[in-house]
């Protein structure tokens, strides 16, 4: 074997270990799941919007508008009852109900703008949840262009600006039983963009900082050969685990705090010109809401740290600890990206299960959920994260009591073949002595 081949073989043996392969495989699986979740968004962008039309006008221009809207969208309701239209569209997962008032044609012919009332059925407040509202606006502008073409062809007496832009629209958005007048889903998404982006990023940072601290701590204990001494000191295993968890939580929160300050200034500079008052639309959090957000963050952090403690027991050195941080990083990045783009309620079922199962997702969703009074999701998330943390702490405590930490194996009691052999040999010895 040549020197080169020998070196390559040795390097591969050192580099391709369990601790390097497992995170990469996990990453591949997680990216696959991420792809599935995003494929739904792509379908939504390309599909025609589902609409309801309530046409109170019998004039020619409203007929043109209805015909054009019908060509470019999937009309789920076409009638004259607004409430019935809203019910139907909501049931069928549609986007909006367009109400054309009785005097629509007359107003345009008289030289005024024909106003269409849009009742938006908003499903989520993620950045991509307003994609369907953009497609509705495209449909409306096409209808408006058709009306313009009619007005030009028939040489009407309307003024030029109305001929070129004959329609306008007023917005009412219905989101989780809140009716917000004079605002569109795109504007609401834009208003909530700070919550949609900052909160998931901060949670991701806290979890990654604290998680990597605890995994590295376990790796360092093994690399520096201090673990054996620590485990023979008169201190309960649970105290060792709790101490490590608490220290990592403090470090994680401190580090995340520093990042938050910097990132907060950055986001403030971006949103300084928006000047939109969320309170005007009833989108504010009370004291209990903030308490729930804090609880959600605490439970989630505890769950993350306990999971990291379990993962950390696999670390054999500082280097291997760094590789083991990868799955935690992926687990925090996935909900961060998905929840920035989509609202939990608008995700496909697999996406919902995935996001719910990751305990770090819950504080990312808490702000937005509480703003729209979705207490069930937040409280159940706190309960789930706490239960997850409890299970992980129990697993970590069990591992600390076994040989796993030092030998990489779980010790077995004397029920094995070896145990039987030694039992038989002790019986023989007793008989000899007798």
């Amino acid at each position, binding site marked *: 074997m040549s020197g080169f081949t020998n070196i390559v073989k040795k390097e591969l043996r050192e580099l391709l270990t369990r601790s390097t392969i497992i995170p990469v495989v996990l990453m591949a699986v997680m990216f696959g799941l991420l792809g599935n979740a995003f494929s739904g968004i792509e379908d939504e962008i390309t599909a025609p919007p589902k609409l309801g039309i309530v046409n109170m006008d019998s004039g020619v221009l409203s007929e043109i508008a209805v015909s054009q809207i019908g060509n470019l969208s999937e009309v789920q309701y076409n009638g004259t009852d607004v409430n019935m239209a809203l019910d139907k569209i909501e049931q069928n997962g549609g986007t909006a109900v367009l109400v054309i008032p009785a005097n629509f044609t007359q107003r345009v012919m008289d030289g005024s703008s024909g106003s269409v009332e849009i009742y938006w059925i908003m499903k989520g407040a993620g950045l991509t949840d307003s994609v369907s509202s953009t497609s509705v606006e495209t449909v409306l502008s096409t209808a408006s262009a058709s009306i313009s073409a009619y007005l030009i062809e028939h040489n009407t007496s309307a003024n030029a600006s109305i001929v070129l832009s004959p329609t306008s629209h007023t917005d009412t958005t219905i989101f989780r039983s809140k009716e917000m007048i004079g605002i569109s889903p795109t504007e609401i998404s834009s208003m909530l963009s700070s919550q949609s982006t900052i909160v998931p990023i901060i949670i991701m940072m806290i979890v990654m900082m604290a998680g990597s601290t605890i995994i590295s701590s376990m790796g360092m204990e093994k690399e*520096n*050969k*201090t673990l*054996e*001494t620590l*485990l*023979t*000191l*008169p*201190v*309960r295993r649970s105290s060792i685990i709790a101490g490590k968890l608490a220290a990592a939580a403090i470090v994680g929160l401190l580090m995340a705090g520093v990042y938050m300050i910097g990132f907060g200034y950055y986001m403030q500079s971006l949103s300084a010109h928006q000047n939109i008052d969320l309170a005007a639309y009833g989108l504010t959090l009370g004291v209990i809401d903030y308490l729930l957000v804090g609880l959600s963050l605490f439970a989630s952090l505890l769950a993350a740290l306990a999971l990291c403690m379990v993962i950390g027991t696999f670390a054999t050195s500082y280097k291997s600890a760094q590789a083991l941080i990868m799955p935690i990083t992926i687990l925090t990045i996935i909900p961060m990206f998905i929840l920035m783009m989509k609202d939990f309620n608008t995700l496909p079922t697999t996406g919902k299960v995935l996001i719910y199962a990751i305990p770090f997702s819950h504080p990312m969703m808490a702000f937005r959920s509480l703003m729209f009074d979705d207490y069930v999701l937040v409280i159940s998330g706190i309960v789930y994260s706490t239960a997850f943390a409890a299970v992980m702490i129990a697993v970590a405590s069990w591992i600390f009591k*076994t*040989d796993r930490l*030092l*030998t990489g*194996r779980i*010790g*077995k*009691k*004397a029920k*094995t073949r*070896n*145990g039987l052999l*030694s*039992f038989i*040999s*002790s019986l*023989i*010895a007793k008989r000899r*002595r007798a």
Partner: protein
Amino acid sequence: MTVIGVEKVSSEDDDGFTGKHVIVVENLCKSYGDFQALKGISFVAHEGEVFGLIGPNGAGKTTALRILATLLQITSGKVTAFGKDLGQHPEEIRKVLSYLPEDAGAYKNLTGRDYLEFVADFFTKDHETKEMVQRGLEIADLGDRIDTKVETYSKGMTRRLLVARALMTRPRLAILDELTSGLDVVNAQEIRRIVKQATKDGTTVLLSSHNMLEVELMCDRIVLIDNGLIVERGTPADLKKKYAASNIEEVFMKVVA
């Protein structure tokens, strides 16, 4: 080769030692998957004695010491320490135990003094902690360097600190694996003297070493382990006589080779 794997454990040892039993090991087995590291060893260690475990590499010495230090689970057999079942009461036993692993380290970001204080806090409170740390400082004897970070220490300095950590608590049982590993002759002699002194105060020492001179100098009795079994036992003097050897190294070669 005489194999004494399974034996009767009596209140009076076969070497005529009659001290109070501190450790009673009965038919101890330890397996890692299919590999049997210990195949049924038995011995008794008495209060205030230095009991040596010697044997070739991979014989099972460190496994035995790790079990006695409450670090590894027992596959089968029984270990009693101070009259308590080791498997049932590990936390009780850790209060009177000190374990010095062969390749142990200390927390690199702490100073030597901080490290001793950190360990002492687990054993005592208030003024007793200060006394314990003071004892540790005397054993470590690192001068001004005790207030510098452990990461700046040489191997010998780290070992002195670790020995100090192990003995400053006045343990009733000290498990010392390669006690003087990394120490020069002068330091090694001093540490051996300190350990011997500790036995006079009632500390029982379980010692494992590849240094046969150290074993001969320190141990009151020894067991020779090979391939997971005890293959010889006795006082150094008796073993030398039995094998007509001038030192324990010769005994070792005759038994194991």
